[in-house]
């Protein structure tokens, strides 16, 4: 089995997730998948639809926060969850996403907020990497 592109790392009070990707778009997809995994979000049988999102922010870190917050808020306002993420990034300040919105089954725990704490989206020879801390 392939290694997951995200890893939960130790944090005393909250949740922290290390995320990796071959591109910034990959990183954004893996961050969303990792966040849903942390929350224990499961899709239930039922209708689904494709959703198109456009997110803008001042820089790559703010884009990551805004993207994940967009997903969280939609999950809080309705009993839905998301899968099949496809993200296109024009530059590090804007993304276009296509994702599948389905009926939510189990959800172990909700995240209060995505934080900027020590947040750096880094690009090196082995790809893109970040550690994002969630307030829970």
């Amino acid at each position: 089995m392939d290694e997951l592109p995200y890893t939960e790392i130790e944090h005393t009070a909250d949740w922290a997730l290390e995320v990796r990707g071959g591109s910034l778009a990959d990183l954004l997809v893996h961050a969303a998948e990792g966040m849903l995994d942390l929350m224990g979000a499961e899709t239930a049988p039922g209708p689904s639809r494709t959703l198109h999102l456009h997110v803008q922010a001042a820089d790559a870190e703010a884009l990551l926060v805004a993207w994940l917050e967009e997903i969280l808020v939609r999950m809080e306002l309705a009993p839905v969850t998301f899968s099949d993420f496809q993200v296109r990034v024009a530059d590090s300040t804007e993304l276009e996403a296509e994702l599948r919105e389905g009926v939510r089954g189990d959800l172990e725990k909700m995240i209060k907020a995505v934080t900027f704490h020590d947040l750096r989206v880094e690009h090196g020879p082995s790809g893109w990497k970040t550690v994002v801390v969630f307030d829970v």
Partner: protein
Amino acid sequence: MRPGEGRRIRVQDFRRLGPVLWELPATHRSDMLVPVRLFADEPLLEDALGDKSLDQAVNAACLPGLVSHITVMPDVHQGYGFPIGGVAASRVSDGVVSPGAIGYDINCGVRLLASRIPAEAAAPHLADLASSLYAHCPSGVGVKGSLPLSKKELEQVCREGAVWVERNGYATLDDLERTEEGGRMPGADVAAVSARAMDRGRGQLGTLGAGNHFIEVDRVEAVFDAAAARAMGLETGMLALQIHCGSRGFGHQVCSDYVRDFQGTLAGYGIRLPDRELVCAPVKSPDGQRYLAAMACAANFAFANRQLLAHHVRQAFEETLRGRVAHTELTQVYDIAHNMGKIEDHSVGGVREHVCVHRKGATRAFGPGFEGLPEEYKLHGQPVLVPGSMGTASWVLLGTAGSMELAFGSTCHGAGRVMSRAQAKREIRGDRLREELETRGIHVRAGSLPGLAEEAPQAYKDVDSVVEVVTQAGIARKVARLVPLAVVKG
């Protein structure tokens, strides 16, 4: 050390100012503007050094316009940006307000209700009571409240807080009297709140949420100050009830909005910080004032939320215990915030300072004589409510003259975590923990077993040790110790 890149903090970096007071000097790192002072005994100091909480306190010491020092409580643990268990006072004249130093769950706090129900008489009915509380108080993820609000009603809640709940018949005037700020934080302006925050708030009034939030039925195990306990309605052997929750998605969104917006405005104020989560704006600037107005709306939402939950709790007690015990009434002891920014006056080194006090995981603890207290509490000081970890004790304390002198009128807020959530999930099974608590006679109703595991008592410090430190330091005084009988968690 370069700004933001200090070496690992060690015990020998501290100066000991007293038996339980330590100072990390402002020379520890070049960008610190004030020292960090920590209340702790040796074991709690070691605990604090075990994660990044003190590095976060050092980062907070870089905020402009701070008065005197950053205060760190013995229940400190690593948070995001600002440590949980931290207090910072910034001058209104030239200081800043930092949304991240108050937290996403604005006015997360605790309410304590007292009863004249003997725990022995209630014992056969506690399982039913736990189930009734779980049924009456919506908890868990994505759960809607019993009182969905129109936009206009939510705007009223933002302005009036718990007063709105009383006007609508779900509270008593005594409840309001025994709530910080009378349950209504001044300065609220709905125009400073985003449409998204309003959307998130409309369905969530009267909900507990998940995470470390809970409703707990306790027995008053011991009283340490009979006169103060009498004024609060607390009596040994009687039931009491705690509600711990905050401003829900409404408050989370308010904080998220301003942490995001201040990323873009920080440079314009010429401020550089070691962590983006600490972004801030001058208190007196339009940006700072707008955040404080929005924060007040969220604080009022939280006061209203705990008030409506108290109404549901009273319904559960009435339905379950009527005819089974002599008295089912629950009277309010106090309701107090532990994530809040407040404009206050404090005397520092003999100088009166007008400051914005950031308390994140710290409780206001004003001493005797404070004018904002109900008459019956003025002689004693402000009640402070310190919930322990699940399955362990909680404490009722009083603010003191010492808390005013040493900690900007603040004290601890809980036990404080020592184990990461990831480790707790690895090592503790929620179903076994529930069984263990039930074996000890504590009835548990929980929406999420993994969530229960993360909140296991082993993941927290010993609340009794924390309380010993704050009382030894003179920043609080003991009134009563409570032990749990039933816990409801989301």
